[in-house]
């Protein structure tokens, strides 16, 4: 159970740049930075609430990444019974780049990619640290 990959679930919002950032962060963490320790999961599965999906998430460790204050990822994962270990938001990545333009819901600018990379590394570091602690203990 403890060896199971942690689920990184973005809101992937389609309206604004923040949704794209969450999606790119999740893909970067799960596919590139921590492929051994993390995997991603479609939030839409969680929304439809099929039994099969519920099993995938209920009682499992999750990290949510949200694009706006509505916090769809965190809320939906919580409804489905997932354990939210950490919550992140794209706006927090944006705040370090005040006044810069991150892009749109489909294309990121260089500044936008920088935001993605910074948040991805922050999340990956946290995952690795926790895994490391577990393996040593």
């Amino acid at each position, binding site marked *: 159970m403890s060896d199971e990959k942690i689920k990184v679930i973005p809101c992937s919002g389609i309206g604004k740049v923040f949704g794209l950032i969450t999606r790119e962060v999740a893909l970067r963490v799960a596919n590139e930075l921590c492929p051994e320790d993390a995997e991603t999961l479609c939030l839409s599965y969680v929304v439809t609430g099929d039994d099969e999906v519920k099993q995938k998430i209920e009682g499992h460790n999750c990290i949510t990444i949200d694009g706006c*204050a509505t916090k769809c990822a965190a809320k939906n994962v919580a409804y489905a019974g997932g354990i939210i270990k950490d919550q992140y938001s794209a*706006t927090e990545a944006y*705040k370090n780049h005040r006044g810069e333009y991150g892009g749109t819901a489909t294309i990121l600018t260089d500044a936008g990619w920088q935001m993605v990379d910074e948040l991805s590394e922050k999340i990956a570091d946290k995952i690795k640290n926790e895994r490391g602690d577990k393996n040593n203990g």
Partner: protein
Amino acid sequence: MEMSKFYTVLPCNGLDKCAGCVARELAIKLATETNSEIICPVLYRVADSRYNEIAAKNPLLVIDGCATRCASKLAAEKGLKIAKKITVTEEAKRKNVKLGTSLRLNEDENLFVNALIKDLLTEEKKIRTEDTTTGFPETFEYELYHKDKFIFRVPKEGFYYTENDTWAYVIGNKARIGVTDFVQKSLSDILFFSPATIGAEVEQFDDLGNIESGKAVFEIISPVTGKVTAINETLLESPELININPYEKGWLAELVLTNFEEDKELLLDFDHYYPIMQRKVDEFDV
């Protein structure tokens, strides 16, 4: 139930016409029914010290009989901050009451006094049933304007608006300030709140800091004149609360009002602001 003092009342007490007598009667009734204290305008002229303290203790209600506004002028002369003002002749016009010529009130005029008391009590009840820690209510009733998939909320009652899309919610001599849903939605996700300084004295239409999203910066234009007593500090960490609800947890600042009666001339009520916001929403390309 113990009722706290409601107002300090300064009536004109004019004995030259009926309107003055109504002002006097209103003050007396209010004092007995709400535990308010009266300042005698005649004695005040010669005995400052007795009344200055009372005047400062509770929100000041000034009741003028007619447009000469002797009581208002007296308050201004003494440097008092007016929380609320009533002019009997204007109220009579509003309520369609014809005032007579006798200095003794007739039946209609007494009913009119009672109606004015009822208005004030309704207002007081509103104040007392509100959130006890801050005095401001936590939730409101909204009119909703739909545009495509978006809904713009505007509180129906108790708010004063500006055409700069800011609002003031007034209780006694204090006001809470914020922006409307139009600002919140057109800015989209708000990332920064740069507040006004506590203690700063602002005039109506001065700025009270700004809020900023990835799209733009919005300067918060103050609807009222006064002194900043508080800012919503939770917004420094969580400015997104403005997006969630700019009238409730997303309020921006609190002020002690110093010139509200005059500020009101350029403030809009719901009926006037709502169509303006509708027009702005329609012209705004979401």
